[in-house]
């Protein structure tokens, strides 16, 4: 009796184990299958309904558009039979062309690249398609979750609804010449003067001290402590970052009055102007490429810019034809990567993939952007030699292939990964451009010799006027939604 019972319980146990094993393994198989097939599912779904159709996608002209033109477009066509027509538009005109085609109701564009800061305006105008139904239908939520937190939580939704897939890890990283910082003579002299070690600055005060020290000491070698792209469109983004890092707030959340002209703001502007003194003369005019040229030439010890600087400085694939406009890097292997002073880098601009609300092929457009944004394909895209798309998914920062691309690549990815946790979002409201414009003009006035307080008071006034015109309550709602995002203000 006892033997029969134990045989039966053994059988039970075995059966239960088998069932458990089967369940677990089938679950694992199903998860594995669904985890790696968001891209595949998109391909399969598209194959069924493509039949030689063409979808049109708007992309930034120049280097960026080489991705869909040379890689993702042809590959998609090969896999699904859908053709992709790329409409290249100069960056400055992208917003305009998207809005004009939408307003004219042409339906000429199916998929879009949009800068996340434009999303409130585009959504308000009704130009973007809400992607939630498509995401659910195609089971893409899991993979969307795997986008790095700052991008995922800040650049995907408007009013809690998904309108775009963050597709570009644009962030301001701090680059410095680790060889210069490692020089014993400089370290000694610096420690003697300032009483702390020469290292990437943690605060802007440290930055000022290190920068002026290095310029003083290295002027004879033609090297400056730092250089930035001080041209208003870029400097405006740097101001947004620094202002918030130093504790500033853009608006009073109750009254919606602009508080950009607070003492913090004035101090930041004043410091920015003073810093130019230890930077190369004429730095006020530096744009992206001018600053890059100076940095790659070895003439500045610190700078802040987008991720491509890191790749260019390392001389990564510099023989690539598409990168022939990049000056030769004299500092390969000498560059260190860190977070900017304050530790909260600006997620400057960036791109998200969206579907145009007036498109006549929304499903196909959606499938294409799901495929582009998927784990598998986006990994390949951020590693394209001519790519301007920067890592933006958690998996990108730990990608083995990427880490092998140049000796310091893993430090680079580590820094980017950190930045993706603590980044600050660009201000985006209704009529964002008007607010940005006031700031840009303010900065140009600063370089022309204007008084920081007067300038910011004028900016605040313009902001208030714009808020009035848009409608205080309307803007307040949008601002609250923006301010509630994790990347709006640095966590205390």
């Amino acid at each position, binding site marked *: 009796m006892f033997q029969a019972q134990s045989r039966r319980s053994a059988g039970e146990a075995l059966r239960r184990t088998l069932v458990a094993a089967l369940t677990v393994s089938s679950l694992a198989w199903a998860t594995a299958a669904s985890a790696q097939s968001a891209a595949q599912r998109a391909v399969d779904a598209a194959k069924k309904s493509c039949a030689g159709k063409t979808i049109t996608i708007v992309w930034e*002209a*120049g280097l960026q558009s080489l991705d869909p033109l040379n890689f993702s477009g042809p590959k998609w066509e090969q896999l699904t039979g859908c053709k992709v027509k790329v409409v290249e538009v100069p960056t400055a005109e992208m917003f305009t062309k998207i809005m004009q085609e939408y307003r*004219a109701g042409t339906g000429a564009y199916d998929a879009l690249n949009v800068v996340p800061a434009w999303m409130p305006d585009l959504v308000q105008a009704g130009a973007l398609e809400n992607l939630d139904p498509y995401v659910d239908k195609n089971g893409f939520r899991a993979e969307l979750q795997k986008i790095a937190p700052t991008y995922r939580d800040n650049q995907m939704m408007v009013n809690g609804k998904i309108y775009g897939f963050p597709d570009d890890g644009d962030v301001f990283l701090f680059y410095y010449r680790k060889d210069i910082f490692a020089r014993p003579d400089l370290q000694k002299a610096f420690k003697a003067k300032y009483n702390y070690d020469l290292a990437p600055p943690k605060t802007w005060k440290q930055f000022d001290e290190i920068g002026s020290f290095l310029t003083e000491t290295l002027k004879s070698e033609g090297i400056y402590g730092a250089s930035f792209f001080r041209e208003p469109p870029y400097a405006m983004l740097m101001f947004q970052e620094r202002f918030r890092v130093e504790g500033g707030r853009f608006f009073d959340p109750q009254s919606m009055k602009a508080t950009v002209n607070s003492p913090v703001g004035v101090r930041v502007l004043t410091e920015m102007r003073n810093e130019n003194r230890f930077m190369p003369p004429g730095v006020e005019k530096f*744009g*992206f490429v001018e600053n890059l*040229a100076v940095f790659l030439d070895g003439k500045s010890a610190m700078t802040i810019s*987008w991720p491509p600087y890191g790749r260019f400085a390392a001389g990564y694939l510099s023989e690539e034809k598409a990168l*022939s406009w990049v*000056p030769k890097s004299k500092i390969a292997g000498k560059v260190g990567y860190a977070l900017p002073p304050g530790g909260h880098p600006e997620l400057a601009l960036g791109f998200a993939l969206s579907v145009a609300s007036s498109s006549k092929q929304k499903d196909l457009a959606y499938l294409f952007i799901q495929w582009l944004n998927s784990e598998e394909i986006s990994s390949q895209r951020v590693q394209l030699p001519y790519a301007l798309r920067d890592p933006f998914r958690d998996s990108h920062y730990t990608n083995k292939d990427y880490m092998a691309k140049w000796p310091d690549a893993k430090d680079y990815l580590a820094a980017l990964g950190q930045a993706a946790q603590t980044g600050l979002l660009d201000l985006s409201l209704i009529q964002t451009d008007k607010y940005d414009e006031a700031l840009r003009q303010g900065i140009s006035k600063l370089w022309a010799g204007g008084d920081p307080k007067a300038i910011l008071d004028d900016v605040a006034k313009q902001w208030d006027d714009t808020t009035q015109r848009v409608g205080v309550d309307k803007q307040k709602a949008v601002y609250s939604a923006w301010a509630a995002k994790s990347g709006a203000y640095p966590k205390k």
Partner: protein
Amino acid sequence: MKIRARRRLALVLRTGAAVALTLAFLFPIYWLFMISFKTPDEIFAYPPKWWPGQINFANYAVLFKDGDATTVWNSLVIAGVSTLVSMFLGSLAAYSLARFRTGGEHLANWIISQRMVPPIAIVFPIFLLYVWLGWVDTYVGLILLYSAFNLPYVIWMMRGFILDIPPALEEAALVDGYTRWQVLWKVVFPMCRAGLFATAIFTFVFAWNEFLFALVLTRTEVATYTVQVTHYFGGQSNFWAKISAMSVLGTLPVFVVVAFMQRYLVRGISLGAVKG
């Protein structure tokens, strides 16, 4: 003797002035064109480099290989055809206005007022119009638009040149039995060849340089050179060498045409024989 020496001195001075002027005007062109041979380090060299390290045509080859150079051809076609259209229609109208004051003051003023409309303000309505007509992203659309834009210029310019010519020759020809059309073709237009040519050059230039409408009214089928060049100015990139090489390619054809035809600009002494 003294007069001849003075004349010779004057000639030397004038030639010297011409050379100096040309050098001054051409310096920026030189700078721009040299960029197409410079490496990025040379473009952003400090102090500025006046001469590229080596002359190679790699940047031009790339433009042809990538198909960017075809935008120059597109623009040539669009600007060329629209120039022909507006020169033809405009010169005829100009004659009518000059000799017969057709429509009087009102017509002439209405015509020139078309050039007073700020382009930016009408880009969108024209876009709407073209959407309705189905002319967006087509050659015909742009050609017609540029023809329309340049008509006021051609009409007023040619009216000026035609008014310059004494009508005696025409009247003589009429008396000789020429029809009015023949008078136009065989007498008037040959006489204002210089004006026609000068006007045509700039009609072409206006169409050639036009950016705003080319940007808004095209998507992928029609790519003009001006729009293509702006693709090289990025927020995170700047293909200066391509910008420069494209500019060389862009200016070369017109320059050649002007060089060959410039003798029409300056009428010869023979016309002095025509006096009212």
